[in-house]
């Protein structure tokens, strides 16, 4: 099976879906001839032309509005936000129109908003943000964050085929770092299903995005200390795969939730609250969160390192929970 990196798998998914379905089109800043700031859309413009690969002026509000309208007319817009941080500039139409319309008057808005997301490159406060929690609090939006090239392709195809709007965050730290076997032919990974990346009995580490590999590294370290950690990759935040989370925690009796987003109001709170509420009797230790602290994302290497969770910090916190 071919081995692709994360970016290549995104690019392949876009190619294949545009090939399959004439109604799929891509729009955003610099996505055309230039192929996107990260080259995720490279080659699409040459292959499908400017009608289906639309370079927009800088106007997140309007091009998301356009995508709303086009989607209701039966097209399938795949919007690229150049960096996930800039989604706040197009926030209004997403949270007010995209999210609510099907509930309000029944029109489907099958669009996908893709955005390179997260930190780890010393890119500073405005090119590193993880604001998925804003969207998980907007009923009507699905929120997907794949952590492997394989899932990135399968989930992006699933998102494009989904009749609902999907916010699709891509951990850009993984773009060129993560490689995996990716089937050549199109396939879907079901939206709403978490993946158990490693099985274990003593502690459930529940995470998503770029923290999955960190959690796996931590689990590996801990296995050398005779602790068996289960690592769950949520993959989809909304709808949340509660069953997988709860089954794991009921088995291990301990939960550590990890994310790159800041702590207060992060999605980890939702997962911790869920576990506390629905697996209460099974818990042998408090459900714990390991997250970035409540600050903007700092730029300087020593600060960003202190800011961002990693395998070492995960292992340390896990040890505390295992000893509880």
């Amino acid at each position, binding site marked *: 099976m071919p081995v692709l990196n994360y970016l290549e798998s995104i690019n392949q998914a876009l190619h294949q879906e545009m090939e399959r379905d004439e109604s799929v*089109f891509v729009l955003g800043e610099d996505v055309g001839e230039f192929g996107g700031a990260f080259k995720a859309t490279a080659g699409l413009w040459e292959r499908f032309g400017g*009608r*289906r690969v*639309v370079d*927009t*002026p800088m*106007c997140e*509000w*309007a*091009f*998301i*509005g*356009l*995508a*709303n*309208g*086009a*989607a*209701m*007319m*039966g*097209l399938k*817009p795949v919007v690229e936000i150049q960096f996930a941080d800039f989604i706040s500039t197009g926030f*209004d*139409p997403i949270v*007010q*129109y995209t999210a*609510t*319309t*099907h*509930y*309000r*008057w*029944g*029109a*489907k808005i*099958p669009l996908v908003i893709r955005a390179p997301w997260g930190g780890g490159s010393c890119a500073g406060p405005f090119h590193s943000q993880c604001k998925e929690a804003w969207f998980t609090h907007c*009923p*009507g939006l*699905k929120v997907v964050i794949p952590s492997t090239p394989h899932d990135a392709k399968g989930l992006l195809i699933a998102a494009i085929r989904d*009749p*609902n709007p999907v916010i699709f965050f891509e951990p850009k730290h993984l773009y060129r770092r993560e490689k995996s076997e990716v089937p050549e032919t199109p396939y879907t990974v079901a939206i709403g299903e978490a993946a158990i990346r490693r099985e274990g009995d003593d502690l459930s580490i529940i995470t998503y995005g770029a923290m999955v590999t960190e959690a796996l590294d931590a689990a590996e370290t801990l296995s050398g200390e005779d602790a068996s950690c289960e690592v769950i990759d949520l993959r989809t935040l909304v709808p949340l795969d509660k069953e997988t989370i709860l089954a794991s925690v009921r088995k291990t009796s301990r939960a550590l939730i990890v994310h790159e987003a800041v702590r207060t109001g992060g999605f980890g709170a939702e997962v911790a609250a869920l576990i506390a509420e629905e697996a209460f009797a099974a818990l042998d230790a408090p459900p714990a969160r390991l997250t970035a602290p409540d600050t903007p994302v700092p730029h300087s290497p020593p600060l960003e390192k202190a800011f961002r969770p990693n395998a070492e910090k995960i292992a340390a916190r896990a040890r505390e929970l295992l000893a509880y």
Partner: protein
Amino acid sequence: MSPDLINEHSNEKLLDLLYWMMLTRGVDDRSEALFKQGRFPGSIFSQDGHEAISVGSSIVLEEGDAIAPMHRDLGSYLVRGMSPGRIFAQAMGRTGGPSRGRDVNTHGLGDLSLRIFGYVSHLPQSMGVALGAAYSFLYRGEDRVAMTYFGDGAASEGGCHEALNLAAVLDAPIIFILENNRYAFSTPLEKQCRIENLAIRAQGYGIPGVTIDGTDILAVLDATREAVERARSGAGPSLIECKNLRLKGHAIHDPADYVPAELMEYWKARDPIELFRERLEKNGVLDETTLSSLRSRVENEIEEGVRWAENSPWPEPGTLEEDVFA
């Protein structure tokens, strides 16, 4: 006024225009009465004074064209096929409204089978949405156009600029109708901008923009027709600014004390329906009999609509969590 335009239309067409304006006003008046009887939970927006704009523009559209009206465009909904009953049912919170009790008054009054896009409060999001419909026509090589509306207030929002510019860049087949009624809620035009005619902004997007009398339905119709033809022929978007005044408050609770009496008088004397009625009478198109038959036709439709709405069931609480996702 547009002296020559009346000759371009058949008597039947002219009476049709009057009928739609009267129906619009009738639904609005009746809504106010129903609200005062406590039968409309929430709030409502009057659109008295906007009838020539909503009717005169939307009447130009053909089947398959798309429309994204704002909160003063009852006329557009009616003309494009939304029945008074469904509009009343929406305001009453009944399942017979397009939103089945989920959205309020004219918000979310959408129906894709009629190619009407329901709006959200956040102005002027309909501009982006309509642009998306217009883009879909381009995309599929269809001979269709999209039309949308925004106020002088919404014209100060950033989205307005983005949508106009993006439409221009894409050569999208779209008509933007600016309803410049001189007020955004209580805020007069002088506090909103330093210009009098907003249509000059069209130059900054490289598209045509005209300013017309929004109380003259034939002027509205004429300007819209030109813009629609332009769009349909592939020549891109246009902006039409229609000047008028809201003849009542912003919403039902607002007495609009802030509007100077002389200004209100000036525009009340230019009630678009009265103007058109007089004009038709003067031109021998309308007589007493025709008028009273139009009146009773409108009355009947409204009565029927109210009855229909009141027979429409309340939503079941058990359905609350349905349809968040498709």
